[in-house]
């Protein structure tokens, strides 16, 4: 008990208390706008969360899921390359992965608005693609939002994958080759399964913040790409409807937790801890 108490206090202070405040707020109501809400077992905030904001929920999870997959597809090869080919430049290369993230999140996202601008260099190239018309655009589309989310959170994918790859004894791939595996087969049967804890951790670190994000859709999206974070932000700051915002946050939290549990069940991280 004595040993546990700092951890318990930490959990109480920074997890349980905020969640309870959130729960309480979500079940409150206010007779009039701008008057602090009072606790009243008001479940209407939850019914509203489900009835009114479905599209935003769907988009949040759709965009965050796509961004997570893209982050794996881009981040894994990069982490693999650094871990296996980086040599004495490993730390430098990993540093370079992190460096852009010393710049404010907001500034980085705003920078993408000019990169993806209709008059920008990317759109010019994009319009050359055969299925894209001359009025094709990137900014203010779902893909720009997904791209922004991927970019903004990809280092959270690369770092854990890199760490898990770093821990792998690459003599194991020699062992696999020795036992008749081609390089690809050795990767699939040995390296990939052993790096799954990193992929798992990275997916959570990308998916969870991406699902709650509203900055990317604000700058890179349009009124048709708004996410649940947009609604929460609007309810909190503009409408000053704290109960509604709290209820939306609770729903978001519960859905994410459920998805994470299902995901960890599928990926079965137990036994992978080497």
């Amino acid at each position, binding site marked *: 008990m004595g040993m546990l108490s700092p951890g318990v206090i930490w959990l109480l202070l920074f997890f349980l208390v905020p969640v309870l405040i959130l729960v309480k707020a979500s079940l409150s109501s206010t007779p009039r706008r701008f008057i602090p809400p009072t606790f009243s077992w008001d479940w209407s905030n939850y019914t509203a969360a489900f009835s009114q904001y479905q599209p935003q929920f769907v988009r949040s999870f759709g965009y965050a899921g796509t961004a997570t997959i893209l982050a794996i597809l881009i981040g894994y090869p990069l982490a693999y390359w650094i871990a296996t080919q980086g040599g004495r430049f490993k730390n430098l290369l990993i540093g370079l992965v992190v460096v852009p993230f010393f710049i404010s999140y907001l500034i980085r996202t705003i920078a993408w608005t000019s990169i993806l601008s209709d008059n920008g260099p990317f759109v010019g190239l994009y319009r050359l693609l055969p299925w894209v018309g001359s009025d094709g655009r990137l900014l203010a589309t779902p893909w720009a939002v997904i791209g922004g989310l991927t970019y903004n959170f990809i280092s959270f994918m690369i770092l854990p994958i890199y760490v898990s790859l770093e821990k792998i004894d690459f003599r194991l791939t020699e062992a696999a080759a020795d036992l008749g595996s081609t390089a690809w087969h050795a990767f699939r049967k040995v390296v990939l399964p052993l790096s799954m804890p990193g992929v798992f951790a990275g997916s959570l670190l990308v998916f969870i913040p991406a699902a709650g994000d509203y900055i990317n859709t604000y700058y890179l999206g349009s*009124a048709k790409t708004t996410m649940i974070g947009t609604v929460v932000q609007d309810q909190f700051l*503009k409408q000053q409807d704290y109960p509604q915002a709290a209820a939306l946050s609770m729903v978001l939290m519960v859905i994410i937790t459920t998805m994470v549990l299902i995901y960890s069940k599928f990926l079965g991280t137990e036994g992978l801890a080497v």
Partner: protein
Amino acid sequence: MANRVSRRQFMTRSGLALGGAIIAPQVLAACGGGGGDEAATKGVYFENWPEYIDTASDGSVYGPGTTLALFTKETGIPIKYVQTLNDNNEFFAKIQPLLSAGKTIGPNVVAPTYWMAARLLDLKWLDKLPLSKIPNAKNLVSGLQKPPSDPTGDYSLPWQAGTTGIAYNVKATGGKELRSIQDLWDPALKGKVTVVTEMRDTIGLIAMSLGIDISTANTLAQYQPAYDELKKQVDSGQIKQFTGNEYVGPLEDGSTAACIAWSGDVLGMKNPDVRYVVPESGGTLWFDTMTIPKGAPNVDDVAKWMDFVYDPVNAARITAAVRFMSPVQGVQEVLRSKGGEDAVLAENPLLFPDDATKARLHTFANLSDAEEQKMDEAFSKISGA
């Protein structure tokens, strides 16, 4: 001055950045301390927006020759000036727990935008200005006297003002000059139009284009045609995005052809292709106020301060520095008489619109809590939130 961040720019950016951090306003306010005691004995304590007053060459607001320094020199009253007001809603969230509990906040002058001042007034969180001790209040321009946000004119004096109209990049419109809101809905501009996230500005301009008098209409039902029009243009893809000040970059590079814009931002742009117009059907006039929060001390000192900045000479100094429309009569003449760069400013139509333009400027009607809430929510629905 070219690179300075306008007061609105600052507002939108930091509002978004800080927005995420505000979860429990009560907690935040609790951290702000009991308040009140700092200015309790004597003097003025003014909480204002960033970069909203003249500074000395070293950037200090208290430096020699600044309005603040001159005020203290002339009256012997100390003044504390903070630039922490970044966002109306954030400011509201900060003061709400204190004022609703009958406590005082630290500053004895604050600068909410007119509609926020109206909300504070409606909540009875403002004290009356001692107008009898502010003789210069007579210099208030006629257009801002007794505005809907303060029908008796007893609770607020405007600090600085600006207009909302249409900005366009004449290269991106194919040489076409825009004159009305209807011009924004030209199919040739599809997907190259943005509107602002401020409900009163976007809805106000569209409503005027549909013949609605925004200085009197005060229910969602009356504004419904404007909402329908906005929704139609968003759904069709005519409107690309809802923006804060970020419309500036795309407007300059032409990827946004036309947008609803704030005069202050356009004043800061260098591109000669970017033009600003108050639509024929009317533009909105907004202003930030000086108000006294309920229970604030040293009201007489505050009165001296307000009187001081309503002297055209002092007001002109502030206008030359911040480049917003001054609510004080006579500033244009003072600037003209100074010559040089100031005289050029005196002729800028964005700072000193002609009478015809002035006639087209309107301030949004006062909204009841319930109607404001309905209109905010309806607006958010269309903008996707």
